[in-house]
């Protein structure tokens, strides 16, 4: 049975300096509110794991919360660069950022291997490309039947995975539907799992588009944070704020403007600020 608690309590109890943290959500259900709480609590030296760092990690990296990034595509989807990520890599600002770079296929397989309690994943990948030359955590494995050589990557096993879902019931079972990404794998691969949800209900209700249900005994803590995925979205609750994703390009391009934005919209606020983005808040 997971703990039902405040976001502050959940992050304080389950996210520690130096942890390997995966905040997943493939465009959909990105746990922004939880990431903002991590910033407010001043976590440092994190290893951040995420297929698409997106704005959520651009913000954490820009504030110097991360020493290391494990990722596979570091852009602002449909817009362009993640300027804070670039500034950290190109100029070491506000601090150097160590990269472990993979392809989407590699990370999806690595999460899958973690959920399955395997030490590595074998897949047909990285053929004729340069990434294996710069990432020593890409190796090879031979098929014991055909002799074929496949790519191998280590399983991802985060200290804590944080996701945002549509609903939890009072027993602590969690439901997400729509684009479900790698969240089930990321939760099952982790030692601890913190879940923010749009609402806590008596009954999870009829499953929607390809629903994923995570039993209560796979979850460590659950927090109701309506709107907690903004500017990402929650299928059935609110749409993706594509205009904000576009606006982020300007906000994040300049260090001072970025710092001012974080101070104004993250440090001076609490999770309740996200409610205004949810149907409940309108």
């Amino acid at each position: 049975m997971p703990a039902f608690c405040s976001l502050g309590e959940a992050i304080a109890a389950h996210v520690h300096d130096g942890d390997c943290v995966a905040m997943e959500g493939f465009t959909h259900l990105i746990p922004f509110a939880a990431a903002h709480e991590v910033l407010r609590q001043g976590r440092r030296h994190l290893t951040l794991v995420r297929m698409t760092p997106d704005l959520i990690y651009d913000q954490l990296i820009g504030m110097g919360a991360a020493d290391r990034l494990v990722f596979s595509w570091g852009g602002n989807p449909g817009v362009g660069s993640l300027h804070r990520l670039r500034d950290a890599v190109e100029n070491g600002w506000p601090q150097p950022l160590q990269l472990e770079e993979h392809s989407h296929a590699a990370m999806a397989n690595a999460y899958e291997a973690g959920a399955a309690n395997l030490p590595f994943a074998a897949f047909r990948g990285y053929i004729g490309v340069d990434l294996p030359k710069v990432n020593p955590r890409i190796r090879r494995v031979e098929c014991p039947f055909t002799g074929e050589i496949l790519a191998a990557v280590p399983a991802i096993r985060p200290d804590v995975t944080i996701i945002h879902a549509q609903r939890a019931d009072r027993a602590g079972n969690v439901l997400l539907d729509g684009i479900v990404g790698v969240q089930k794998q990321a939760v099952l691969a982790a030692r601890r799992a913190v879940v923010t949800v749009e609402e806590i209900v008596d009954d999870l209700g009829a499953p929607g588009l390809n629903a994923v249900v995570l039993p209560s005994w796979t979850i460590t803590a659950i927090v109701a944070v309506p709107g907690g995925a903004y500017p990402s979205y929650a299928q059935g609750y609110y749409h993706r704020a594509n205009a904000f994703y576009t606006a982020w390009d300007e906000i994040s391009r300049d260090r001072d403007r970025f710092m001012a934005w974080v101070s104004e919209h993250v440090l001076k606020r609490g999770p309740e600020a996200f409610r205004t983005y949810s149907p409940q808040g309108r």
Partner: protein
Amino acid sequence: MTMPPAAPFSANEMMTVVAARALRNEDVCFVGIGAPSAACNLARLTHAPDITLIYESGTIGARPTVLPLSIGDGELCETALTTVSVPEMFRYWLQGGRITVGFLSGAQMDRYANLNTTVVGSYERPKVRLPGGGGAPEIASSCQEIFITIPMSRRTFVEQLPFITSLGHGTGRGSREALGLKSRGPTRVMTDLCVLEPDPDTCELVVTSLHPGVTPEMARAVCGWALRFSDRLATTAEPSAGELQVLRDLQARSAAAHKDEP
């Protein structure tokens, strides 16, 4: 050099239309964001109504009414035949060899259609850190064939890539086979000026069709290597009024939809 006659369509529209035309009704297409998404949906709304569009977010058979800004917009899932997890998408569907056409683009391309979307400069101390490969490395090897859309310029068409993010034809004919690949790799590159295809003998990209009003000199002038032309060089058919109408409506709908969002 002479300028082309003012045309009632933009070079970018020409690129999108020529990419759409290359798609078949029975294709199962792995779609990227931007030009590929516009081209795939233009094809779906014109000559290829049954084309299957797959976005790496897991949506299979998406039929969006507006172009998504990201590969994971809700519109894709709501209109899809089914949506699968991202690991399943890359394991069963892409690696499974079920995708007929994969669309790629890139910041830089060489004459063998290898692409770089990772870094400009050295990997350790990059001059420009680009987004990285995402799905591209395995799209390039697992899809039955690859279409590339990329605007032509000396910055994008380069003699030597600093980093190979996704494999095209390697160092020329036989490179893919030597790596054990059975997929065809890039079969056509669609730009704002022309269409290029690999030479059957060398796999070097050669111009097979120039867009209306574009001269060989104009194409040569913006290519970072000594550009070659097919001896059966054609002129690309102009976008039809119908193609332009559908494309512009689609892009207008999409712009409006994304502006409305908070």
